[in-house]
């Protein structure tokens, strides 16, 4: 059965996590995308800065997240997916930094995922094609990283999900890692065959796909059962705005300039039965704080609209 979720960022706070989960529940969500990446920001990493969060031991991290786990459970929210801190590799970063990301942050993220009994963790592929000279060479490095996680994933029953992401040049967004669906499908199959387990899957990000004009229906259809989780959000086709679906139009007719119908058709075709998870944290800071619950409720209602139209039963 399809469930509806939203990311924890800007809803759940470390001080009293249960409050945030209760807000989610009241808004109509049944699951959450845990924003683990909030604990080591990409903006810091691109400045080659580390905080000490992942220096904590496994026990300390579990103690830190115990209130979150308990709060979610008490509120009736399932932690359905989470997002590993990214990037997993900083080009031009020192070896110590990248070793830390690979050998400390990534495995501890997996353990946190297991602690939450969360079945899916989303990772970003390495952005190396411009330096290494090809997308194939770039994927080889990402695959080495995934190989380092796969045994843990298999043991813990977690599926690592690669996500379609982008690069930017001159302020213009171009496709980045995992934007070629045929290659993604082939690589996921090969990887899972190697480990005799479903350790690798795909996270389809609608906003990223929209920025590079990807055909949602075709992409989702080609992925099929490899599609495990979603990041649902909208943008104007120019910037990665993470806004509510159906927000943007471009013509006088004022019809949506993002292919939500194709999105629905694709999910219906593949009989998707996972979570429709909205990655819409920026919406909550765009609207006044006092309207947060109403905004979340509205996002949840859009999720219900999707469910009604996707429903293949």
């Amino acid at each position, binding site marked *: 059965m399809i469930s509806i979720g939203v990311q924890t960022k800007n809803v759940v706070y470390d001080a009293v996590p249960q409050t945030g989960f209760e807000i989610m529940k009241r808004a109509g969500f049944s699951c959450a995308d845990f924003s683990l990446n909030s604990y080591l920001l990409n903006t810091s990493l691109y400045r080659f800065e580390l905080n000490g969060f992942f220096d904590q031991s496994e026990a300390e991290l579990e103690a830190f997240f115990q209130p979150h786990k308990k709060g979610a459970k008490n509120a009736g929210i399932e932690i359905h997916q989470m997002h590993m801190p990214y990037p997993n590799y900083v080009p031009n970063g020192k070896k110590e930094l990248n070793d830390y990301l690979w050998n400390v942050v990534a495995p501890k993220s997996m353990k946190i995922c297991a602690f939450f009994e969360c079945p899916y963790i989303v990772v970003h592929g390495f952005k190396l094609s411009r330096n290494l*000279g090809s997308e194939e060479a770039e994927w080889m490095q990402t695959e080495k990283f995934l190989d380092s996680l796969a045994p843990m994933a298999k043991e813990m029953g977690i599926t690592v999900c690669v996500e379609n992401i982008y690069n930017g040049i001159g302020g213009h967004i*171009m496709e980045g890692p995992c934007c070629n669906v045929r290659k993604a499908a082939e690589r996921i199959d090969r990887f899972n065959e190697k480990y005799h387990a479903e350790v690798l899957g795909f996270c389809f990000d609608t906003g990223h796909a929209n920025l590079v004009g990807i055909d949602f229906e075709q992409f989702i259809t080609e992925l099929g059962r490899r599609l495990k989780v979603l990041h649902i959000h909208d943008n104007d086709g120019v910037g990665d705005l993470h806004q509510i679906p159906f927000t943007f139009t471009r013509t006088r007719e004022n019809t949506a300039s993002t292919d939500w119908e194709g999105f629905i058709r694709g999910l219906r075709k593949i009989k998707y039965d996972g979570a429709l998870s909205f990655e819409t944290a920026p919406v909550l800071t765009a609207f006044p704080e006092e309207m947060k619950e109403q905004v979340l409720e509205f996002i949840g209602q859009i999720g219900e609209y999707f469910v009604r139209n996707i429903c293949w039963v």
Partner: protein
Amino acid sequence: MKIICSSSGFINPVRPRQGISDILKAGFGSISLDLDACCSSLELEQYGKLRKDNEEWRYMENYEYLPISEHPTKVGCFFERLLAECQSRNLQISVAHAPYLSRDTKRTDLSEVLFDLYKESIRFCGQIGCKYIVIRPFCTSSVKGSAASYESVRMSNFEYYLRLAAVARENQVMILLENQCHSLNGHLVRGVCSDSFEAVEWVDTLNDRAGEERFGFCLDVGVCTLCGQDMHEFTVTLGKRIKAVILRDCDGQHESSLLPFTSVCMGQPQTDWLCMIRGLREIGFDGQLILGIRDTAGVFSPLLRPPLLVFAKAVADYFKWQIEIENLLRKYSFIVLFGAGNMCRNYMKCYGEKYPPLFTCDNNRKMWGENFCGLEVKSPEELKRIPDGCGVFICNIYYHEIEEQLRDMGVKNIEFFNDEYMPSFYFDRLKMV
């Protein structure tokens, strides 16, 4: 590889002499002819809507203008003057672009109108000795509605192209498919043949059914940019099926045909020239490189178009040089480099094994005798003792200053190397003193 100038923006078919003269003086020997000059997408969108008792229709008849969409056999007549001028001035027409519907067309009823137009366009190409014609897929929307719908798009296009193949064969013309985008409520997104595997399948299937290589591919760089695509991957997948490339710049949001390197933001180009050059280089592209800069041409005064064309030719030559850089390296039995810095380092990374230099030299005497990236650094005086037929590649951005120095020394076979579009890069740059 042949560099071609698109006629759009420069040649008025009704009064072509000045435009053709400007193109020839800039150094172009060949053009691509945009047949939409005789039948625009606007005309096609309005097809059948002009009534014969309409004043506008009477005006056209008075001035002997007949819409080509209604009279496709008149394609040749429309370009009579242009053809005559090209023939008298020995300007070749190497590629033609058939008329097309707009990206957000509402017309779904023009298949036979377009078929007649394409047929006559192909015949026209045959008459003038033009080997290639770009014909956009008829139904440019991508998968819509259901799998059955995509299959019907595919089949109807195949059927269409195969009907045209017979005409193309009679006229010895190759039909080039082209990567498309389409308008999703004003947002330009990937369309038919924008997926490289799909494009390969279409070209191969059509050639298979035609029983010969009657179909190829035209890569539109502008569409790749609009669709945020990795041109390296796209190009390498298509390989030798690419017969023509339309070189144009745009901001990735609006469809425009600008001079390369002019759509810039925050000091960076908005078109991924690196990936394009890498891809074309890797496949050994030697087809038609079409400079399509109608929008840049349109905003310049006619007084400035001649120098614009000269500059545009230099830009196109630069692309050709970059794409064919290995041809230049291959030309020489021996190679030496001038410069012991980052450019030399990048040369050695990407080409040092395949085209090993004898040594490098540098004006910095502190480096003489040292080993730099596996090469001995020598005094420039050593260039007076290099073997005959040895190429001297300047690996420094102060090309002309060093070239002058070497010419004064009597050095021959001076070439420029460049590391702006290398097959791969180091993650760092050396800090040179």
